[in-house]
């Protein structure tokens, strides 16, 4: 009799524990996305009033004068991302192909290791290196040095995504092409690459999303510029750099511009993210 009650109690307790645990996990998970909601709301609330056509088309005003826009920073960010892409995409894709084609090779092992280590280097350290490599010998800060720093950061992402996508392509596809007498390099360029295009593009977009918001490697490379600049040998502004400088200033006007710039930057990055996802979904084909 007694025993039965005990078991019953014990059983209930276990069930209760199970339930409590479940809801506790739900609670924690819910909590962990609250910062995201807060950040987005905060940026929208403070940023939306700063953003208008003029914000995109005009230049910053001198300290203490209200108004002004972020055209220089938008142009600068686009330039930096372009330079980085121009550097990282060809090297990254070629390396990805090499790794896929020579899987058991000793050199492949070292390339793979290098890509992994590159990925783990803190962004500020890459900034130092770009300063040593480009700024010192050139004698001045430049968009080029910032772009190269960002390119180095983008490279591992592209190598990895290319390699992984190529890995997923069935051998039969490649063999079919080779059996038809298509030369090896053409098989890669015209069969394997197109087949894995969406994966590679996704990798590129992820890479761009990763570097577009980077500030640390630009502090002593791209340096910032209150004027519009299209030359890659001159310093340029960038959105994250502008946000950093304006956010830490005491001026309310500048804070407002920084919130507006944050809104622009985060919209750009989230759009890339969403685009990436749609892209992957649309072109996902089962073999």
């Amino acid at each position, binding site marked *: 009799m007694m025993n039965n009650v005990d078991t019953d109690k014990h059983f209930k307790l276990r069930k209760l524990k199970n339930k409590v645990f479940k809801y506790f996990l739900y609670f924690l998970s819910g909590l962990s996305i609250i910062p995201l909601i807060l950040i987005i709301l905060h940026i929208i609330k403070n940023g939306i009033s700063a953003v208008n056509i003029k914000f995109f088309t005009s230049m910053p005003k001198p300290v*203490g004068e209200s108004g002004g826009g972020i055209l220089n920073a938008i142009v600068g960010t686009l330039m930096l991302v372009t330079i980085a892409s121009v550097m990282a995409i*060809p090297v990254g894709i070629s390396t990805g192909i090499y790794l896929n084609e020579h899987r058991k090779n000793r050199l492949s092992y070292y390339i793979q290791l290098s890509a992994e280590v590159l990925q783990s280097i803190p962004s500020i350290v890459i900034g130092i290196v770009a300063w040593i490599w480009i700024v010192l010998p050139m004698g001045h800060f430049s968009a080029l040095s910032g772009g190269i720093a960002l390119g180095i950061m983008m490279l591992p992402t592209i190598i990895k995504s290319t390699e992984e996508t190529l890995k997923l392509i069935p051998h039969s596809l490649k063999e079919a092409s080779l059996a038809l007498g298509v030369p090896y390099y053409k098989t890669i360029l015209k069969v394997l690459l197109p087949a894995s295009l969406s994966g590679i593009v996704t990798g590129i977009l992820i890479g761009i999303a990763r570097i577009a918001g980077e500030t640390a490697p630009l502090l002593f490379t791209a340096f910032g510029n209150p004027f519009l600049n299209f030359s890659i040998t*001159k310093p340029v502004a960038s959105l994250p750099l502008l946000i950093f400088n304006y956010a*830490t*200033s*005491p001026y309310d006007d500048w804070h407002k511009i920084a919130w507006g710039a944050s809104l622009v930057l985060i919209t750009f990055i989230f759009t890339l993210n969403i685009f990436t996802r749609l892209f992957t979904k649309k072109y996902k084909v089962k073999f």
Partner: protein
Amino acid sequence: MKHSRRNIFVMFLSVLMALTAVSPASAAGQGETKAKNAELLGAGATFPYPLYSKMFDEYNKLFGVKVNYQAIGSGGGIRQMLSKTVDFGGTDAFMSDKELAKADGTILHIPTCLGAVVVTYNLEGSPKLKLTSDVIADAFLGKITKWNDERIKALNPGVKLPDQNITIVHRSDGSGTTFIFSDYLTKVSKDWKKQIGRGKALNWPVGVGGKGNPGVAGLVKQTSGAMGYVELIYTLQNKMPYALIKNKSGNFIEPSLETVSQAANIDIPADTRVSITDTDAENGYPVSSFTWLIFYKEQNYNKKSLDQVKALLSLLWWVEHNGQKYNEALEYARLPEAAVKRAEVILKSVVYNGKKIDFKQ
């Protein structure tokens, strides 16, 4: 058919090559063709940054010359000048003989304006406080920790001081403002001289660091009970209170254009490197200073074109003369006539390949 496929391959290759290898090379080529639309790069002190950003904005409207000045701190201005990564540097602390000796070439200074470093704070009601040098020194040494400390109370009868901790805010970066402030305290406080000394970056015993004058002002504004030091304009623009400081003659002086100019009313040496803190002037504000722009005497380095050098000299000349009219609106005192005369001589002494330069004045 065969051709078109090869073409694609060749295109792929050439794009690869062109994009990776050639881009730095083509970049180098671009720099030289752009000389006529001169762009000048400066970096350094945050203390005169509001003034410079106004001046250079106007200068761009007038002459179409873009002057990019990045406020990274005086230490940064000197560093970047030494590594020759900028056309000119800005600093509130004139370079020491030791620093000048490190440079690869002679570095010249010209003063651009006068400013005051003020002690600002965040207290309810923003009362106007009176402070003496030893109280300031002890607060920044961490010896006075409460706002209602007897010594602060004694100086400010009638002001209600809260029982609140003093949060010291100082600079995190190498700064001329720090140099001026510590130069003053070193002159007036033995403890300070022994423990801390003067410098652009100090080993602070207490407090938080903010980056640049804007960073410090931002932190003080955010932190109740904070005390920090910034350039006067930053407190005015942000409606922050500042303290009256007792000078050598025993008067409590409010920082202003007038009191700063009084402090600068002295003999200026030929190289313009002079400290005017702890002034003898009866109504001079004791934490005043010149701020300088620095540049090389020999301008032919890093393949700079003569046109670019001329553009730099014209700019500097303008800053010393017509540009001065922007000073007072932004609460920086104008340069005394004597200082401008010295600067003119210095600017005319700049050379390119060892030859004098004929620039637009």
